[in-house]
């Protein structure tokens, strides 16, 4: 098992490498001068030169790629005196060199300052400093507003996570029973209706469904708010960034109810496709297991039908469905762009949409990279958990 996990981890490395290469090359796909594309037709030459410099576009490509990964790195031997002063070094990310001494600065950096300050780490007696570099979690600054992408990402990411988790939750609790019932009552009216519904679900543009839901339940009936995460004026202390969790932790029930109401429509819209896919998968997986010998044996020994279904059929039929759920959770991050745009949900999807309109490529690049990383990670977890659940599956 350990060997399997290790091999699976090792196999992920070239994929991650490829992902980083693809995301890196993204900016070079832009026809013409990327700096000019970002700043628009009326940019001054000076500004274009500044952006080119900042994005490192004047360097040779391999150098640019290394910069993209690890940033501009400097190594410096440090004397015992410095070490004393940088005892905080490990826990402190941002350090500034001032006349030979190293001062830790935690707060009070304005955005423009931040870009000039190197982030440093102490490795034994060597001080390693870097400027940029996605491996360090430094995603650079946005073109418009010059805001550190990582900071904004940290603020917005929980919104997308909350929405995606809510959507996958809705999808699973509806799709699994629907698939099971469809399989048991195969070719009945209920089966036909469910499967037709599932097919319509995958055939519908989710942004259209989102608009429909917003129109019917938000505008006409007025049951749910039509956008945002929280009503104006509603106070909520941010701890995790997942509003439902934050509200529970602080026992802020009015905010909990408000956040929940805001969550309903976007998560239903986002849940449609995974719901349809999981239901279809559950049904076919059930049908396959239902035909197996041990199910007949279980029935023959007089087991109650529900015991057969739950204990013998469902447990085995769920295995392939778990893979699908994992993949769907990863894809939701992509689908969220559309749903978030319709419902003005302040997550990374809405952000990337705005960034595309504003041609703010560092943001598009960072979000793409993050989502791909999550996608790879989820697939890894799914594969490993699958091996745990099904001893027959082994790496080859």
């Amino acid at each position, binding site marked *: 098992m350990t060997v399997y996990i290790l091999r699976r981890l090792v196999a992920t490395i070239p994929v991650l490498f*490829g992902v980083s290469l693809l995301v890196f090359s993204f*900016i070079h796909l832009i026809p013409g001068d990327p700096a000019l594309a970002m700043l628009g037709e009326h940019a001054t030459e000076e500004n274009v030169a500044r952006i080119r410099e900042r994005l490192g576009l004047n360097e040779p490509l391999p150098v640019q790629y290394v910069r993209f990964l690890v940033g501009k790195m400097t190594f410096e031997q440090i004397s015992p005196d410095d070490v004393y002063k940088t005892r905080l070094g490990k826990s402190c990310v941002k350090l500034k060199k001032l006349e030979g001494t190293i001062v830790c600065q935690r707060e009070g950096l304005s955005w423009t300052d931040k870009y000039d300050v190197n982030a440093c780490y102490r490795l034994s007696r060597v001080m390693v400093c870097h400027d940029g570099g996605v491996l360090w979690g430094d995603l650079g600054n946005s073109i418009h507003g010059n805001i550190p992408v990582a900071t904004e990402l940290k603020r917005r990411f929980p919104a997308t996570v909350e929405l995606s988790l809510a959507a996958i939750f809705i999808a699973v609790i509806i799709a699994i029973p629907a698939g099971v019932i469809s399989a048991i009552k195969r070719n009945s009216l209920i089966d036909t209706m469910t499967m037709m519904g599932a097919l319509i679900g995958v055939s519908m543009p989710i942004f259209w469904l989102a608009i429909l839901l917003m*129109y019917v339940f938000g505008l006409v009936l007025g049951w749910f708010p039509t956008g945002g995460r929280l009503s104006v004026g509603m106070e909520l202390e941010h701890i995790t960034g997942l509003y439902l969790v934050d509200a529970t932790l602080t026992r802020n029930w009015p905010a909990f109810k408000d956040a929940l109401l805001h969550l309903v429509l976007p998560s239903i819209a986002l849940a449609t496709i995974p719901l349809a896919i999981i239901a279809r998968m559950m049904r076919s997986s059930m049908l396959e297991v239902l035909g197996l010998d041990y199910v007949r044996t279980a029935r023959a020994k007089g087991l109650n039908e529900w015991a057969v279904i739950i204990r013998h059929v469902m447990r085995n039929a769920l295995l392939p469905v778990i893979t699908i759920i994992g993949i769907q959770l990863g894809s939701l991050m*992509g689908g969220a762009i559309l749903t978030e745009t319709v419902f003005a949900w302040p997550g990374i999807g809405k952000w990337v949409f705005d960034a595309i309109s504003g041609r703010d490529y560092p943001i598009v690049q960072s979000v793409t990279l993050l989502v*791909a990383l999550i996608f790879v990670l989820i697939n890894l977890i799914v594969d490993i958990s699958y091996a745990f659940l099904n001893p027959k599956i082994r790496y080859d």
Partner: protein
Amino acid sequence: MTVSIADNEYEVQNVFKRGSESQFKRALRRTLKTRSAQMGLALVLTFLFIGLFAPILWPYDARTDLDLRSRLQPPSKEHPFGTDDLGRDVLTRVIHGARVSLQVGVMVVAISLSIGTILGLIAGMLGGVLDSFIMRVMDVMLSFPYVLLAIALVAALGPGLRNAMIAIGIVYIPPYARLARSMALQIREEDFVLAARALGANQRRILFTHILPNGLSPLIVMATLSMGTAVLDAAALGFLGLGQQPPYPEWGKMLVDSMQFILSGSWWVMLFPGLAIMFTVLGFNLLGDGLRDALDPRLRL
């Protein structure tokens, strides 16, 4: 067990028969036995008909279409689907939007099917380093959610219908490559391929006359299903403003333009383009499912 020459010859002949038209006709007949596949075919044919003949039957010039006196009118006898914010007839625009979707579907499938199949066949036939390289690249592409990768590509290439089609086409390559590769791996070990090789056929001949025709049915199924998803993804790109540019009608763009007017209750601007997308995609999905059941029973859901 020894394989006699006679057996081989029979097999080789059989390959040609399998690729022939009568085989295909039979498959089609089997497909159309189910009600849902018939419905799918009807939807697809309607879509094809409208897409192909719209300019002849309902001539329309998007560049000059503007009638501010009749803006945002609800469905009526004159405008069955109502009018939009510029007074344009929604029905006409939905009809002409079909052309864009048809174009996207065909182009995307053409790009992904041809490139993906060739890459997959090369990987499967030749094996070795080239195989690993191609398949690792495909793995990397599959590490991104489809929509996101397509969006990122168009964002880089620049918005527009042509770039949207190229982006979706590229994003759809990996599944075809994987399918074609597994197909090549499976078929190249079959007796009739060995026989052809023994008879002196070269790699290219084996590829095109023996392996490709035998693996055609899963590819057809996949092409049908991806026509539907291509229409969906193109609408998504249009919705994000990355697809067909105004004033030309495109279903996704029509939807995003409609959003600001539903606040005032103009639901028709939003309902009909969405229904058009849904029925088109549903048609391809139903037909694809039917084809899959008929052509390749092993894949049945």
